[in-house]
């Protein structure tokens, strides 16, 4: 590795668990003195319902806490540090303006049950966001309630089930292509549906006649991920929708990959009935180490009677929550939804506008195809055609030198990059799924490409270097088998030594 490589080593700290720090009586808080009578707790609540102590709870100062988390943060990789090409995850830059706006007291300190008369700003924002998302998707209505992509999927399938039930029969099965997202089968199963897998064809897309063969009146609908997990646009989507609609089924689109065509085409114009959006992907809200996200669901008019409550309505100049939807599926979470996340998505949309959103999709697709064109040859490309927002390679060349996808991924860390998504989609053996997003400049992509090519060379010339990677992070490869065989899921106080 040369001086030009981004990844290097720096001073990082060891930091024990908080439970192994501090001393009795140490504290990190200060509360105002009590201004009401200081009655004893057991005068107000029977003693048998009270606890004395929280055994093991920390006793540390504010300084201890700040150093603890600052040191731990340095063991993490984030988009702020470098390229994070996790396929299917759309790791784009998280604008800081959005964070500041979410912290304005009028948003952060607003209670979800406060009177509508003093919530007009929040309601207006939600109402406008619904209009924007409906327009972006070519849909009629949007539920902002679901808390994540998979939660949106679940809500979408519930809506389909409610629609069929209202026609007298909820039906039994959901069709799911093998190139769909991993959560789709579980979301269907939670709704009581049997999952029927659909094989994608040699071009990496679902063929309409294959759908027609399994489509019957027992099928509630199909869940299509578009572009699919190979990064390929399902170009038969219009015909597939016709086949499914022909037997009274509904078409669900997993919209996690919307960043590939936002502003260029709209799911609603392709015959999609319902789609979830992952605002933590397409609309730049931070992943935060795995949440919070939000998964609004956009849908066509015929599904609107079943929307979760409350919806946001507008009467004249006033905005209001509407709980009165007799056919509603109910609620999928408390209150109106993850307002703070939705607000960040709103801010992002208003920052980019129609031109910026389209530009994001275009550059995301150019970036992905640029990587595809440059790594072809060094890595095996199972579907050799233009991609959308992500490209999928595998380790077919490197396995000859006994270097696997996992090794390549780990070695990338040493070069200063987060690895791509690996071993997914399942239909590509040893998949390396690379999604650069529009966030990365040509120079960064060139550095990434150079690192990938260097690793391909290392695989041939010095396999052990790759197989033993990573070398730069604070810890090396973890024993995941041990973690699963002897689960240690919490700290416990050691018994006093004898």
């Amino acid at each position, binding site marked *: 590795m040369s001086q030009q490589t981004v990844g290097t080593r720096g001073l990082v700290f060891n930091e024990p668990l908080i439970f192994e720090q501090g001393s009795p*009586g140490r504290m990190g*808080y200060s509360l105002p003195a009590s201004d*009401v009578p200081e009655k004893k707790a057991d005068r107000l*609540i029977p003693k048998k*319902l009270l606890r004395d102590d*929280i055994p*093991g709870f*920390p006793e540390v100062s504010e300084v201890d806490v700040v150093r603890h*988390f600052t040191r*731990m*943060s340095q*063991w*993490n*990789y984030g988009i702020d540090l470098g390229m994070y090409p996790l396929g299917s*995850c759309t790791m784009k830059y*998280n604008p800081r303006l959005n964070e500041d706006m979410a912290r304005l*007291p*009028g948003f*952060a300190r*607003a209670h979800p049950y*406060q009177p509508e008369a*003093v*919530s007009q700003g*929040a309601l207006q924002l939600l109402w406008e966001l619904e209009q924007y998302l409906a327009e*972006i998707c070519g849909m009629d209505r949007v539920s902002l309630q679901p*808390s994540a992509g998979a*939660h949106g999927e679940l809500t979408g399938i519930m809506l389909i089930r409610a629609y069929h039930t209202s026609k007298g029969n909820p039906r039994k099965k959901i069709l799911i292509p093998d190139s769909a997202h*991993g959560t789709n089968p*579980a979301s269907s199963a*939670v709704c009581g549906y049997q*999952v029927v897998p659909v094989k994608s064809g040699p071009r990496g897309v679902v063929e309409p006649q294959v759908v027609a063969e399994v489509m019957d009146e027992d099928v509630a609908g199909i869940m299509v991920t578009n572009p699919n997990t190979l990064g390929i*646009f399902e170009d038969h*989507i219009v015909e597939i929708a016709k086949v499914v609609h022909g037997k009274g089924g509904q078409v669900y689109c997993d919209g996690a990959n919307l960043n590939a065509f936002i*502003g260029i*085409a709209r799911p609603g114009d392709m015959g999609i009935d319902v789609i979830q959006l992952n605002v933590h992907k397409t609309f730049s809200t931070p992943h*935060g*180490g*795995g*949440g*919070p996200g939000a998964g609004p669901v956009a849908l066509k008019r015929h599904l609107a009677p079943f929307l979760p409550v409350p919806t946001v309505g507008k009467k004249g100049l006033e905005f209001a929550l509407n709980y009165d939807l007799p056919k509603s599926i*109910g609620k999928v979470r*408390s*209150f*109106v939804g993850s*307002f*703070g996340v939705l607000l960040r998505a709103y801010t992002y949309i208003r920052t980019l*506008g*129609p031109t*910026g959103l389209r530009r994001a999709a275009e*550059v995301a697709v150019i970036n992905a195809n640029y990587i595809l064109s*440059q790594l072809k040859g060094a890595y095996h490309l199972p579907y050799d055609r233009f991609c959308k927002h992500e490209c999928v390679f595998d380790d077919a060349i490197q396995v000859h030198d006994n270097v696997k996808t996992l090794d390549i991924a*780990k070695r990338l*860390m040493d070069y200063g990059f987060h690895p791509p998504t690996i071993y997914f989609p399942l239909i590509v053996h040893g998949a390396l799924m690379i999604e650069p997003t*529009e966030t990365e400049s040509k120079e960064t992509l060139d550095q990434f490409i150079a690192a990938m090519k260097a690793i391909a060379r290392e695989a041939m010339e010095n396999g052990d270097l790759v197989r033993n990677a*990573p070398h730069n992070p604070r810890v090396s*490869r973890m024993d*995941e088998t041990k*973690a699963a065989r002897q689960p240690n*899921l*919490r700290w416990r106080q050691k018994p006093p030594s004898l």
Partner: protein
Amino acid sequence: MRYIPNTDADCRKMLDTIGVRSVEDLFSDIPASVRLKRPLRIPPALSEADLGKHLHGLAAKNADADRYSSFLGAGCYHHFSPAIIGHLISRGEFLTAYTPYQPEISQGTLQAMYEYQTLICQLTGMDVSNASMYEGASATAEAILMAHRVTGRNEVVVARSVHPEYRQVTHTYAQQIDITFHEMGFTPSGAADLKGAKSVLTDRVACLVVQNPNFFGVVEDLSELAEAAHAVGALLVVAVTEPVSLGLLKPPGECGADIVAGEGQALGVPMSYGGPYLGFFATQEKYIRQLPGRLVGATEDREGRTGYVLTLATREQHIRREKATSNICTSEALIALMATIYMETLGKSGLKEVALQNLRKAAYAKERLGKVRGCAIRFSGPTFNEFVLQVKKKPPDLLKGLLRKQIIGGLDLSRLYPELKDCLLLCVTEQNSREQIDALAKAMGGGR
């Protein structure tokens, strides 16, 4: 566009390398018939300064708990939150990281999650906790689905004193797979009516679901409820919407609870008009493999150094697909991090002190308001920081009058409980001063 580095010239070079004439060529697989031939009809881009002004304007139209004197609780609580939380979670290494799939470069998030799981266990008195879920209501629904998997039974009994939105969410989830619901009423003290529910608490029941403190703020006798559930082979699910109460109350795990699910917002997370929040979920050791959601476990690296990984993934949807314990993929890592920092900063004595202040201030408010003409404390049971007040005046009129005085006077229960249509649910936290409580009593007609 300041978020997109590549210029037209950069793009041109890349398109040449790719070997296409224009970006259009890369979209030729999208059928022409469905390609959008016009710009999206959304407002044009705003500069950072202009957008900031616009959002400040919207925010100013909302009441916030600093400018108003608010007595709203009901599943979302206005507590003091130390300044360091906002600073620490803003570190890009936490904020802009994905789910920790690559443990070697995610140890910060992973160790924080392991500490979170431990703190939730300590707080609830349970053996194991997952790494967080969406929020309290869906976590409670997941608890019911888990009880159904564990027992193989298809009926559940849910106390009417469980948060109405939690009940609604559990219904939405459970109706997909034909679970029958029975309701357990409440006694004049406001507690779950165990006696009245004897006939439905049978050996067909997967779980009994109660909330503690319940929606009316009343502290339940969980041991009694656990005994009754276990007598018919059902699990006891305890929902907690106000975890600050656990600074004082006996933990559900010591009372026989099998699953504790709830909302962690009260632990240092802003109210944010409804989210993002934090669902917590804890259970007993024997149910580890039935637990939904992400789990972090301790292990070692090749050199024997302690480290942490996501573990027991064989329960999860990307491996088990339709046979997974849940479809949940995301947790609420950043919000769990907020709660972790909150719990560690307040620590053993701080959480107890906050809980005690809540209890005392609410007790003071109860005493003051109970003496106001036309007001009465509706339930006789012991309460934590919320209570139900019966009022002579029509609640909507009363609340409107209070709002004119910058007081948000609690929740009108008529939409949620027709039988309590003349009642308000009030919450008093450490953020409410005695002065605010006295002003509320005065505005409601209590003199002084």
